[in-house]
């Protein structure tokens, strides 16, 4: 076979050896970082959704604990409280629970024998709030006091605050983790750039002596690492999407798990910008590191 070289069809070859771009160790580390960051992003989105879901569930209701006063029977006091609360703006429905339901609620706490029949127990009123403009606990309290009903209102705000704090902590942890991974990616690329410049000292020197500027040489490394990082982060993100999709499909029949981490198909798109982000981080780090190393040279 004879090789015929046609100068008119010649196009400049990469100035850095092609095989330098196939640093499998670097690619593996970057892909792993991308995989972890992608999972963190999916979990953060699902966790946030779970927290908001739980919050809206319990924030949409309130409980009124009614004690009978004077000649009132507990059932009558509860019915009165329910009537008063129903009239408050922002309440969709108020329902007094009868003795049997109240006993069923406390049953797990007092055991199978239940409460003594003569023991005075408070009655509960379950309140469903208007989801668009819910009444506050203070509104309910004011209305009950004005009607002379001895009751305590629990608007679940203590629980919603805790749930939201937990959700925010989960999101902050995920964002921090992604930030840490970005920093780690930068450190890995900086290390690889230094290694690359040391390994290709001959090429760098030849280019310098041929009149190449530091910027020209740094751009070569910048482009090389940006491309490698983009490829590796794409692989990592794709694997994370596949893993998250597999978990979603595997837990789709389990209501408890789904409620705990309600991953949606849209959440799986969260890692899509990561290859671009990885390329950007690698390009910036590669360039800055290469420029710093080149300036150290005579």
């Amino acid at each position: 076979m004879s090789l015929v070289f046609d100068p008119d069809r010649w196009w400049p070859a990469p100035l850095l050896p092609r095989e330098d771009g196939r640093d499998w160790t670097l690619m593996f580390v970057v892909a792993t970082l991308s995989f972890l960051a992608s999972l963190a992003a999916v979990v953060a989105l699902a966790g946030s959704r779970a927290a908001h879901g739980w919050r809206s569930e319990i924030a949409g209701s309130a409980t009124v604990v009614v004690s009978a006063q004077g000649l009132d029977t507990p059932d009558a006091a509860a019915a009165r409280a329910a009537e008063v609360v129903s009239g408050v703006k922002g309440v969709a429905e108020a329902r007094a629970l009868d003795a049997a339901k109240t006993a069923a609620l406390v049953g797990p706490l007092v055991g199978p024998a239940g409460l003594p029949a003569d023991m005075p127990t408070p009655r509960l009123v379950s309140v469903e709030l208007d989801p668009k403009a819910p009444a506050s606990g203070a509104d309910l309290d004011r209305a009950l006091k004005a009607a002379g009903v001895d009751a305590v209102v629990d608007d679940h705000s203590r629980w919603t605050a805790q749930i939201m704090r937990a959700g925010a902590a989960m999101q902050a942890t995920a964002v921090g983790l992604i930030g840490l991974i970005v920093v780690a990616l930068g450190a890995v690329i900086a290390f690889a750039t230094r290694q690359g410049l040391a390994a290709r000292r001959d090429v760098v020197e030849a280019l310098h002596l041929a009149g190449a500027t530091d910027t020209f040489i740094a751009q070569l490394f910048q482009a090389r690492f940006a491309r490698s990082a983009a490829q590796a982060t794409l692989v990592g993100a794709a694997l994370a999407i596949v893993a998250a999709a597999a978990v979603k499909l595997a837990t789709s029949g389990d209501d408890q798990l789904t409620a705990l981490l309600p991953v949606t198909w849209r959440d799986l798109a969260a890692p899509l910008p990561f290859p671009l982000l990885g390329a950007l981080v690698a390009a910036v780090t590669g360039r800055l590191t290469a420029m710093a190393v080149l300036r150290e040279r005579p």
Partner: protein
Amino acid sequence: MRYGREPEVLKDISFELPRGSFHFLTGPSGSGKSTLLKLIFLAEQASRGRIEIFGRDVALMKRAERPAMRRKIGVVFQEFRLLDHLSVFDNAALGPRIAGRKAADYRADVADLLAWVGLGDRMHAMPPALSGGEKQRLAIARAVINRPDILLADEPTGNVDDTMALRILRLFVELNRVGATVLIASHDRDLVARAGVPALKLEDGRLAPHPGFAPEVDA
């Protein structure tokens, strides 16, 4: 000029190469010829003394100014310094490429020059597959492709036969005729004699007191 704490390699040297001149640089091995060339093409910095190139003191030259200065200087290295992962054509095209010229503007020049140095049928080859002489001719092609204002060559005919050596010499003379300042370090007494141009002779890191024409250098 000294490397680290080693004894001085070059000392008490003072000379001027007028623009458009042609000189040989002779002297025994270890006399400092390569070091002198490295100082001129800015690969080394003098530990003392003053070097001016194109009227500029190189010690006062900013780092960012050096690449432009280097592009005006073509260098043929004794050890070639070819890029083994690039083809003959890519190696020869390095200068115009780094200078930012479009490939279409210099393809033909590179092909013509490679044909002229006898590498017309080796343009696709990779340097490790070339013979010593072919590598040397490629190094020369790479050095002259940008028509440098100064051409420095370190033993440029060390690996070629007489015919090719003369051909290379003619190329240098031609470049000199169009304005390039040429300085060639060489052991090749015949070549120096045939060139008939002044020679600077280095001995123990010093310039010989009366540099003269080639035959006198050999005397």
